[in-house]
């Protein structure tokens, strides 16, 4: 009996030893340098050692570019190399911010910049408002008991998995002059509409497509929030004779509010950065009617014949300030929530 057990044990251990072989090999290789680092920096310093590779990559690709970007924003000219550029102080910012009437882009020195600011502001307000409301509605529906709930949740989440460029291309294919939508409409006897070449339609579709692309993500956050509300509370509300609307306003919405706030701020941050889907879909057109700040920066800095890197850098710093503000707001909100929950 004992020999049988022994054999079985042997088999099991040989299988597990095979599975852990790569791991043990890796550990063996890492052992010497790790003990060296630990001797060198001490146990307490190992945290910094483990963070170092990530910090290095973060520095090379984020921190240093931000610093360089800021430095460029203080220089002028079209040269790429820093040595060939001349210092202009806050001149680029002055150029960007010179306007006799900020509500009318054509009165600004950089009318394209202000047009893109106006477009972005309109896009952010409209897109975030509709996106949050539709996400909430979707989450409420998906939270109900229904057939094939998993399938429906998947359907709404699916676009989130697509790359923004693919999203833009899909919808361009649907909406272009000879696209799917026009084909269907004309089959039913309607006239062809130039969905992407008419100013108001282009903006409408830019907003629509970005909502379609992000809806699932935000609906998922809200769905998680809804499911965290105990069923008991709804039953207590039922016993208390609470109507459906009142239950929504007095129970669901207050308890979902922390999630809703996160969704609003994340959607705001994302909307301010709008670029890829819209750029692929409309290319900023017709004219500059769907050109957003990010596209302005890209075109000013890279696409234009006269690469005005200084101006583009200054514009991106200004946009960065807005994003930092929104991020601070988001962190403030989630910290406040964490403190509240800790009580």
């Amino acid at each position, binding site marked *: 009996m004992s020999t049988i057990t022994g054999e079985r044990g042997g088999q099991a251990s040989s299988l597990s030893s095979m599975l852990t072989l790569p791991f043990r090999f890796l550990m063996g290789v890492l052992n010497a340098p790790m003990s060296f680092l630990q001797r060198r920096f001490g146990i307490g310093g190992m945290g910094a050692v483990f963070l170092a590779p990530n910090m290095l990559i973060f520095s090379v690709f984020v921190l240093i570019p931000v610093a360089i970007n800021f430095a460029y924003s203080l220089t002028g000219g079209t040269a790429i190399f820093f040595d060939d550029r001349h210092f202009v102080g806050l001149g680029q910012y002055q150029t960007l911010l010179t306007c006799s009437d900020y509500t009318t882009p054509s009165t600004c020195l950089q009318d394209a910049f202000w047009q893109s600011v106006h477009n972005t502001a309109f896009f952010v307000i409209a897109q975030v408002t509709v996106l949050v409301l539709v996400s909430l509605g979707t989450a409420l529906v998906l939270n109900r008991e229904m057939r094939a709930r998993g399938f429906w949740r998947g359907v709404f989440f699916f676009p989130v998995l697509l790359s923004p460029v693919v999203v833009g291309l899909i919808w361009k294919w649907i909406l272009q002059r000879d696209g799917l939508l026009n084909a269907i409409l004309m089959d039913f006897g309607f006239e062809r509409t130039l969905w992407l070449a008419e100013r108001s339609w282009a903006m409408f579709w830019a907003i629509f497509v970005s909502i379609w692309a992000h809806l699932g993500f935000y609906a998922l956050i809200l769905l998680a929030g809804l499911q965290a509300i*105990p069923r*008991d*509370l709804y*039953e*207590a*509300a*039922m*016993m*208390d*004779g*609470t*109507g459906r609307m*009142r239950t929504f306003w*007095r*129970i669901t919405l*207050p*308890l979902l509010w922390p999630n809703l706030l996160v969704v609003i701020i994340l959607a705001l941050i994302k909307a301010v950065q709008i670029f890829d889907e819209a750029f692929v879909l409309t290319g900023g057109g017709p004219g500059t009617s769907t050109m957003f700040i990010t596209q302005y920066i890209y075109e000013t800095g890279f696409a234009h014949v006269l690469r005005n890197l200084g101006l583009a850098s200054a514009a991106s710093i200004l946009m960065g300030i807005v994003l930092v503000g929104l991020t601070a707001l988001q962190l403030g909100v989630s910290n406040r929530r964490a403190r509240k929950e800790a*009580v």
Partner: protein
Amino acid sequence: MSHLVLRQVTKEYGAVRVLHCIDLEVGNGEFVVFVGPSGCGKSTLLRTIAGLERASSGEIRLDDRLVNDVSAADRGLAMVFQSYALYPHMSVRQNLAFGLENSRMPRDEIDRRVTEAAKMLLIEPLLNRKPRQLSGGQRQRVAIGRAIVRRPGIFLLDEPLSNLDAELRVVMRAELAALHKRLSATMIYVTHDQTEAMTLADRIVVLRDGRIEQVGTPLDLYNNPANRFVAGFIGSPRMNFIEAETIPIAGGVGVQVNGKQQRLPHLDLAPGSKIVLGIRPHSATVTEIDQGTIPLELTLVEQLGAETILHGKTDRGEIFTVSAPGQGRFSMGERIGIALPPEDLHVFNAEGQALPRG
């Protein structure tokens, strides 16, 4: 105060039937406790009465009004949940007032009722706090207060004390009993704790597998359990059971246990019937090893001060518990004798039904 009648109420989830033909009447001002092991359907029955679940068939009548199709809100009942289900974002005051606001009651009447309930439950100083700032016992009071302010026809309480620690549970149990008296309200209370059932109930409903096993006053159930299940469920420590076969003995029918003859209460039984004897630990008596009917080898001795609970095994391997008064000197592994007073024996047939005593 309301009067509740259930007629042939069943509840099915798909093909699974969780309540079987429940017939029950709860009178005005009565305190009825549903008790049973988990999964016996007691909570489902309560929720069906509340209107949170729909009965699959049968009739539910409140004060002679058929309420099967009446929504939970319109049945005029209030429920206290096991989790308390307080609205976490509202203050205690708002929690109490919420249901009244739904019915568009005038503000001063709401305030009056909230203050009155808060006074009764000693939670007046807490009215402006949020539920998360309250202890378990305080939350429990708020949950009860939320029911009180509604002045419901029936209070439905779903294991309301199970989230409290043992000491607080005893205190709240007493308060609930006092509250019931003070409000002279009809209350239906669900618990799996037979002690709670015994101490609180006017009548106990014992449920098993979605069926009512027995309905009666606490002492009724204790003294005359209808079957082996009720006998084992009610009373602590639980009743002992010994399987036996009847034999003729001088002056009637008895059983042979451990080679010794044991008289039975006067019963209409033919010799040779298979039966189960039941005896409560407090009814069996400890004797010298050679004098008792059953020899017992002790496996555990629990000293409670006023009594000593002895757990042991019979020679046939049956587990047996007996209570000895006072602080007896017993040790584990010791062999003692157990005598079974015939008048305290419960006798069940092979199907577990209690045999009527003659």
